[in-house]
């Protein structure tokens, strides 16, 4: 490996050019292979020539243009943020654009006829602003920024999913949109893209000189009279516009923006000008090659495969490889932990506990008792009607409460363990593993009964957990690395489910429901299973509270008091994994409760590990209960899954809280 790298260094000037030439030759070769029968074949008729001219060729051009735009956007972001993991996909920019378009598609289709680009741009700019403001709190550390980007991506995805669920009619088109298909029927999209990308590319080229200056260091650049912050903002703005235009034209194509600059750097591009140029070229080549391969594969499998899902599936393992080479910074102690607790009126600790308990009981009472009649009226049932309703509601209420409590506990563990208050079980990839298990099940058996779903979900979670451990072992369980591995595996799983969904398979609807986290399937047996495993694992967590109190103070402190970091991390990760896998069974892979619970607990004044766990349990189950109740009653007789409702109310709330504290 070192030999290869050394060789690359010697070949520095030609490196990127040789790589690019190889990539483009292979892509062009595949293109030609597909075109030959039409160009030179004897049986080529007018129709296949027409397809060549109006579909095949524009598709090649669109692939090249979009790839170039994404590659350039990725390079700009990576240079601006000095973060090799930055890209339109990992910073939530693409997801933001996508959500904006989906919202417009459902609520105001006319808006899209006039200004599709503007809609996409608005969405991606908002997402970028959100991610950057979250990342700014943690000094733009590479991992925190990407985690913030991921959270925003997940949230945008959750919101888009609700819209899809409630508008089944649009489902296939929305899925295809989200999955990034490059299929073309005219030159119009290609010709519309060309000038936009050209202008943005030219503007980026103007940045080369200031960027080169920036490479010497912010201080030097400032001394030479450069407005460093304004410069960064300009770069990010250009990148956001580039990705918005691509999303607006073909949908979300993830990871090209991440991988192209990485290849550029690996093949020897060093100066900003080189990185920008070669990232653009590699982006174009990559997407072209991928799309040719996709068409060839789709042809032989007779399936509809959107190119975007394939780039995601290829990109996730590459992100893993990049992570291997990344140095994690030594963990800084959590600033929040040391800040003195602000005076909160005259409420004593005991009164606070009492208040929280009373509030939780009130929430449970409302969730169990208040419901709606078939004609839509709000009712408090009595007598036999109450008994009927209790039979139906109790398992769901129990499952929601248990899952919320478990996710929050897992969140407390992960946040304390990693010293990163954006960590959460949703991000560990365990939940995604459960989803993958169920997806696989749908294709193995024709009737996925509940017990089978449970087995599949647990198997999937354990497989992901196992791979996270195996991959992380090399890094001695460095927490950020473990989280990022989880993220990448999660993205991989999402990509695979995306292919099924975009294919318009009716199973997609089932899968979508499952992923959006409804307590609908919960019966007494499931609820008790989740509850019992929750109690057991929460007790285990409480036994490990000393580790959780000391670990946030930094590895040196921990080692100083005789804690074996490797063993403690392993056991805590295992517990967090178990907690989130069991909770996923009840409320699906997405909810953000694992993220919100610990923060709410701390905000309510529960600060030691033990207090935070109890506070988290109360907050987590409270949020989940309210989400489940809202989901059951708001659009009666239809339902919005609890997981989606939780993420919808929770994520913005979290952002507000964090902004206020930061």
């Amino acid at each position: 490996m070192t030999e290869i790298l050394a060789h690359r260094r010697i070949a520095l000037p030609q490196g990127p050019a040789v790589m690019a030439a190889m990539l483009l030759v292979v892509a062009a070769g595949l293109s030609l292979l597909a075109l030959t029968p039409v160009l030179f074949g004897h049986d080529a008729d007018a129709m296949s020539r027409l397809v060549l001219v109006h579909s095949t060729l524009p598709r090649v051009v669109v692939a090249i243009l979009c790839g170039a735009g994404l590659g350039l956007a990725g390079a700009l972001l990576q240079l601006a943020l000095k973060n090799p993991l930055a890209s339109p996909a990992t910073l939530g920019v693409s997801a933001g654009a996508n959500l904006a378009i989906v919202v417009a598609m459902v609520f105001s289709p006319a808006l899209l006829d006039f200004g599709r680009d503007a809609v996409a741009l608005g969405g991606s700019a908002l997402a970028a602003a959100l991610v950057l403001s979250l990342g700014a709190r943690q000094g733009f550390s590479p991992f925190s920024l990407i985690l913030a980007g991921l959270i925003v991506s997940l949230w945008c995805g959750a919101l888009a999913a609700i819209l899809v669920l409630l508008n089944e009619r649009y489902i296939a088109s929305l899925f295809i949109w989200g999955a990034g298909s490059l299929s073309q029927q005219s030159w119009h999209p290609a010709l519309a893209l060309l000038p936009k990308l050209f202008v943005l590319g030219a503007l980026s080229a103007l940045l080369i000189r200031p960027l080169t200056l920036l490479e010497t260091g912010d201080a030097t650049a400032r001394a030479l009279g450069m407005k460093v912050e304004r410069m960064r903002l300009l770069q990010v703005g250009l990148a956001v516009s580039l990705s918005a235009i691509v999303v607006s034209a073909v949908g979300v194509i993830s990871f090209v923006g991440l991988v192209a600059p990485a290849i550029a750097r690996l093949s020897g591009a060093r100066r900003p000008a080189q990185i920008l140029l070669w990232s653009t070229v590699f982006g174009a080549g990559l997407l072209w090659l991928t799309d040719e391969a996709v068409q060839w594969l789709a042809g032989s499998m007779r399936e509809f495969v959107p190119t975007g899902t394939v780039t995601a599936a290829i990109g996730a393992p590459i992100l893993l490889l990049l992570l291997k080479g990344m140095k994690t910074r030594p963990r800084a102690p959590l600033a929040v932990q040391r800040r003195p607790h602000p005076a909160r009126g005259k409420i004593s600790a005991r009164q606070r506990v009492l208040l929280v308990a009373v509030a939780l009981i009130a929430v449970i009472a409302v969730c169990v008792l208040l419901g709606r009649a078939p004609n839509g009226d709000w009712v408090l049932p009595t007598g036999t009607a109450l008994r009927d309703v209790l039979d139906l509601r109790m398992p769901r209420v129990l499952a929601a409460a248990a899952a919320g409590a478990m996710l929050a506990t897992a969140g407390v563990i992960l946040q304390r363990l990693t010293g990163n208050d954006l960590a959460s079980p949703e991000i560990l990839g365990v939940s995604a593993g459960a989803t993958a298990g169920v997806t696989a099940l749908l294709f193995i058996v024709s009737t996925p009964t509940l017990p089978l779903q449970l087995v599949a979900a647990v198997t999937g979670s354990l497989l992901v957990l196992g791979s996270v451990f195996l991959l992380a072992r090399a890094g001695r369980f460095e927490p950020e690395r473990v989280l990022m591995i989880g993220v990448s595996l999660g993205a991989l799983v999402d990509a695979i489910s995306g292919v099924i969904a975009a294919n318009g398979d009716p199973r997609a609807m089932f899968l979508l429901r499952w992923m959006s986290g409804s307590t609908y399937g919960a019966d007494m047996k499931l609820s008790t299973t989740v509850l019992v495993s929750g109690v057991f694992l929460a007790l285990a967590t409480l036994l490990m509270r000393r580790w959780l109190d000391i670990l946030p103070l930094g590895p040196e402190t921990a080692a100083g008091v005789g804690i074996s970091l490797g063993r403690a991390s392993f056991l805590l990760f295992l517990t967090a994994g178990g907690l989130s896998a069991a909770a996923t069974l009840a409320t699906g892979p997405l909810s953000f409760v694992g993220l919100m619970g610990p923060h709410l607990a701390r905000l309510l004044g529960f600060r030691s590990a033990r207090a935070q766990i109890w506070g988290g349990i109360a907050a987590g189950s409270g949020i989940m209960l309210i989400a489940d109740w809202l989901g059951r009653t708001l659009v009666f007789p239809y339902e919005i899954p609890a997981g989606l409702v939780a993420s919808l109310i929770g994520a913005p709330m979290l952002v507000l809280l964090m902004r206020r504290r930061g």
Partner: protein
Amino acid sequence: MPAVPLSRRHFLAATAALGMSLKPAQASAPRIVSLDYGLASTLLSLGITPIGVANAADWSTWVVSPPLPASVADVGDALAVNLEALTSLSPDLVLTTPYLDSVTPAIEKIAPCLRLSIYDASGGDVLPKAERATVELGQAVGREREARDFLDRAARHFEACRQRIARSPAPAVLLISVLDARHARIYTAPGLFDSVLHRIGMRNGWTRTGQYWGFETIGIEQLAEVAGPDIHLIVFEPVPRAAIATLRESPLWRSLPFVERGHFAILPETLMFGMVNEAMRFAGQMADYVEAKR
């Protein structure tokens, strides 16, 4: 006879339960909830108005005809039937399909279920399966004669359509729903539409077999692969407005032989995953189309 032992067992259990639970006064109008559009419309044709239908809110988007009486309650999404609403309707019988097997156990605790299999992994031509399911349904709800009459009526309708079409060489058709400006869903064997085409002496221009629901998702340009001089294109509503506007500007779309020659029509909504009623509606649409193009 139905080859699936499971559906037979369910059927017998449901019939038994129904017989026991029906009071004499109710016997003429059993309280039935249908979780499937096709079964609900079949029920209407047998002279029974269901008390509840899943996804009733979207009936007018997908099924249209026969219209759903206003008295029918909506019981929520078929894959997440509102169990509380279902309980308070206290039905005698709930009609389900294999697609809904994941929710059936929960529903069986509330009311007996009858599971009728039309679209399932066993594959096979859909129309005969829908006809068998109609007979089964008629037996289960005490409307055997009505079911027989209904199927006779359907057979006569198909035969009439076949004769109307046979007056000239019938074109082959491509049947699609437009998803957006670049993608479509094309209806294939072994789906309902394909099955009906055979019955009325027409040919599906798309020869590849799809999954057991009988469709495939394609890029619009793939339509050119099968474009021949005697192939017609049928697009079903609902069509996204923006999509059709974009398509009309696309040179590829405009030069597809069927668009160029006007061998092309946008027809009203017809449920592609339906049963005999929907098959009749589709057959009628085809006969009308062929006559109009003659």
